[in-house]
């Protein structure tokens, strides 16, 4: 008994050390992110702008209205995707599960295409399009959940239902996208391609509030998630209904991911791999994994966005989709961690 307590204490200590290190790196990343772009701005000017005492109005306009929105968005989206990854991987007990498995992205795309087909002018408004994407993602998720519940609501049924809904909707969305492209006279997919470049303040506020709610709820669910990871039987023995856990967690994951999809399009890798990185660092206890994943996710996406800006500037090719960079940047790091773990 003493040993177990001692073990938990040492884990806790390790968690707080890692947590503070990650918070420091996040702050650093944030400041770098504010100073890097088509115009590099020195760090002292960034601080001046943040405190509102920068004389150069245009410079502070660039920092506060373009870069800050973009940086905060990348932080909240990264964190949201990572947390929903933890939720989904826990309730499905599947290491390969990720939030997009629930049919969210293809649902969002299909609804967006449908909306543009019915009301072509909808494409002109970011607000409409993100609202539609959000509804689409949640609708697809509802379908997945209904299908899964209809066949018993087990971990496997959730995954299989997700696969069915995803393939259904992606078929529909490519078909619709093709029609829309022909009708609208212009490449539809380019218009939908997620980018952090034109994030609006209202969207940042939406991301932040959904993340806060999702994060607190996930922390509250951490013990239930730990229980379900041992199996549905064990969870029941500990007094937690596994179906309820699965329902609430997947709902939270869907909410977190839908907002991200609506604002920035599909960004892979983070939801799948960041939870694993967190587990490699701290073990499987979700009380620790969730906060660390959130921090790691935000750092990874913020760094990816910085490299997007650097690359766009250096190669003079315009904005690169950030989703492509997350994988390219994150995969080697993940491979390194994996090798280190195996060696030890």
């Amino acid at each position: 008994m003493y040993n177990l307590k001692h073990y938990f204490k040492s884990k806790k200590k390790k968690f707080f050390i890692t947590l503070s290190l990650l918070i420091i790196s996040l702050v650093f990343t944030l400041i770098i992110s504010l100073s890097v772009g088509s115009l590099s701005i020195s760090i002292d000017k960034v601080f001046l702008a943040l405190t509102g005492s920068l004389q150069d109005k245009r410079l502070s306009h660039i920092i506060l209205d373009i870069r800050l929105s973009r940086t905060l968005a990348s932080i909240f989206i990264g964190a949201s995707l990572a947390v929903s990854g933890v939720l989904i991987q826990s309730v499905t007990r599947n290491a390969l599960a990720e939030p997009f498995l629930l049919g969210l992205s293809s649902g969002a795309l299909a609804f967006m295409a449908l909306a543009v087909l019915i009301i072509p002018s909808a494409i002109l408004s970011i607000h409409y399009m993100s609202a539609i994407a959000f509804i689409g993602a949640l609708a697809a998720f509802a379908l997945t959940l209904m299908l899964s519940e209809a066949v018993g609501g087990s971990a496997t049924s959730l995954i299989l239902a997700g696969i069915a809904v995803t393939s259904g909707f992606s078929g529909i969305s490519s078909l619709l996208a093709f029609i829309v492209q022909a009708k609208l006279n212009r490449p539809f997919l380019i218009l939908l391609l997620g980018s952090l470049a034109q994030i609006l303040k209202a969207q940042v506020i939406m991301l932040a509030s959904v993340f806060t709610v999702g994060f607190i709820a996930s922390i509250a669910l951490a013990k239930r998630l730990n229980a379900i990871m041992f199996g549905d039987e064990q969870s029941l023995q500990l007094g937690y209904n596994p179906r309820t856990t699965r329902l609430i967690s997947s709902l939270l994951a869907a909410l977190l991911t839908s907002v991200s999809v609506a604002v920035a399009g599909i960004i892979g890798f983070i939801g799948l791999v960041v939870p694993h990185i967190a587990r490699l660092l701290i073990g499987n206890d979700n009380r620790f994994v969730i906060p660390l994943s959130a921090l790691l996710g935000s750092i990874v996406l913020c760094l990816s966005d910085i490299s997007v800006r650097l690359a766009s500037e250096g190669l003079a090719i315009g904005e690169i989709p950030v989703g492509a960079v997350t994988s390219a940047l994150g995969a080697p790091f993940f491979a390194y961690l994996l090798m280190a773990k195996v060696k030890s």
Partner: protein
Amino acid sequence: MSPIKANLAIIIAALVLGLILGASLTYFAVPLKEGTTTTLTTTITLKQTPSTIIKTKTVLATTTIKPEYPITIVDALGRIVVIKEEPKRIVTLSPAITEDVFALGLGKYVVGVDSFSNYPPEVVKLKKEGRIADVGGYWQPDLEKIVELNPDLILADAGAHAKLREKFMELGLTVVYIKGGSASSLEDILSDLGLIAQIFHVEEKAEEVSKELLAQIQDVEEKLARANATKAKVLVLLGPPSWGYWSAGSGTFINYVINVAGGVNIAAKYHGWVKLSLEDIVSENPDVIIVSLMASSEEAKKVIENIMSSELASTNAVKKGNVFVLINEANDVLMRPGPRIVEASKIMAQILHSEVFGEISRNDVIKLSPTLSHNTYVGESIAIA
């Protein structure tokens, strides 16, 4: 009264009149920089003959309306935009818009253009000298650079840049959308010119440019009508065939160019930008194939070789040697919905009807030539000869 005294009296009267007019105009809060200069010029003309008084009065009236801001316009997205004062720092987000602005003589106000803008040559020169900034690619302009330039007007394309609308508004930037890439005819392009002219009160210049462009198009059409030329079936490929047979259907400005130049667009049964199937093309059997390419002449020749060795070899176009690849300027002209659409129509007319307009000889229009021929092609051409 002696005639000199009478003249003097008229001059004084005119001066007083001008002063009163000017004062009353300042009272109505009209910026009078240009207004005052015009009163000056009127007094000079007055000294010559008294009979010009009536004339100068009208001059006064029209020129003092000129700096009347704010004005309200409706742009191509149907937005109502209020222009508070005459813009002095413009950013244009597409090559066609840059060409529109320069055609209207507003080039001196341009402070930023997209990366592809390279016409008129002045733009390239000013870019090199650093007097016009590059604000990034067509699809995703660099917002930070735009803000840095502190523009008082951004001219954007209703197609490519619509999604940036809300961000521009959040940043407090004034943006006006023109039809641009969604233009379907010369009329649409002229209405774009008219919209821009409205913002700067240069409607007369826009009218002048429009008349000139319309006259040139009419000239092409009349010559074709007089020659009673038969219409050729045309396939325009956007990019090399290896990208897929992308073409421009009805409702595109390229379709308009083909029609004006006395051709029938085989893609016109589809709407908008469309990917054709090989079967579609072969069964339509185009008489002329035109490929738009952003590449060198060496690559253009390769594309022609590819077409000749592909299934397209069975089309009339390849059999008759009517395969043309447009590169550099000829390609720019065809692909940009700006005032040079007229030039594109002329090039297209020359390609389609060399019997009327003379054989085309431009080094940016590469034609299938017997030297790079293929066996079947040589056989066919001998048979035709």
